[in-house]
């Protein structure tokens, strides 16, 4: 295989979607559960990200972080710092973060108006 051209050739341009100024909501139940997770320390932030993969192509990724190296926009919702990466802001604008109290399949859920479909477990969307 001739890969001599790899370093000198131009990478295929991956069209980056336009960065959207995100608005999102957190339900009362989700706030209650986040309060338990954060404790009194509100310096940490909830990072709401999207990863490639899952049955439908994209997977939600929720993490509690101090900071992140990702280029993010920061929202403060009822005292909670929420970070949304600009690279995936177009996929996350308008979402509602909910918490479902069930023994099986329970936990944080994201209701996403941008999703045309989602997989059965609710973690993946397209």
């Amino acid at each position, binding site marked *: *295989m*001739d890969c001599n*051209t790899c370093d000198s050739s131009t990478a295929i341009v991956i069209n980056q979607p336009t960065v959207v100024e995100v608005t999102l909501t957190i339900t009362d139940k989700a706030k209650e559960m986040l309060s338990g997770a954060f404790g009194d320390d509100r310096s940490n932030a909830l990072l709401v990200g999207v990863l490639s993969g899952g*049955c439908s192509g994209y997977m939600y990724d929720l993490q509690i972080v101090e900071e992140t190296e990702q280029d993010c926009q920061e929202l403060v919702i009822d005292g909670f710092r929420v970070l949304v990466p600009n690279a995936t802001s177009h996929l996350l604008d308008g979402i509602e973060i909910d918490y479902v109290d069930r023994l099986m399949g329970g936990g944080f859920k994201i209701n996403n108006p941008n999703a045309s479909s989602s997989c059965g477990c609710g973690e993946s969307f*397209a």
Partner: protein
Amino acid sequence: MGTIKLDHYVLILRGDNLLEFIDGISTNKVEGSCTTVFTNKNAKIIDMVEVIEKEDFVALVGHKLYKDSVISHISSRVLDANIQIFDITNSNNVFFTTNKSLTVDNATIHESIIGRIMITPKDSEILEDMAYDEFSDYRVKNFIPYQGHEIVQNIHPLACGLGELVHEAKGCYVGQEILVRMRSRGRQGKELVRLENPVEDATTVGKTHSLRIQRIQN
């Protein structure tokens, strides 16, 4: 038999966690060099690709018919991951060969489900001594589906003989739910068969037998 040039593209991926990335968007378990299938959310084929792991990059080799679809499928899922895609199709040729002793400088040899393929620099001189009809007959005899014939974009991998590339136990990937459901309920709808000639609606015609995708008879 012999050697024939294939109408294939060669993409190079560089960056972090490349195999994991490909694993997450294709049907086979991708832990190294292998053959896998990109499917869309409806489990329809985008392309079957050869994954070739090299020291500092991963090459993807598939059929030119579907190159744009594959680039679109991959690039829309890069998001903010450190992954770059290069198209080196114009500086390489892809051959299928049954000649195990054939050696070419700077060739990459890969064992695919269709057999041995070689990716060589464009200026390498290789004697093509297999006609397309012979390649088709080889595929019919060995029950091997191929792009543009059995492997087309309106069909799912189980229906065109690519079931062995749909890993039964791996985690989620695009189209997985549908393929798992088809398997668990025994409802894949169609299957690839080899029949004695003459065969109506054959996808590949061989000398004595042909391949056809037909509805499963219950």
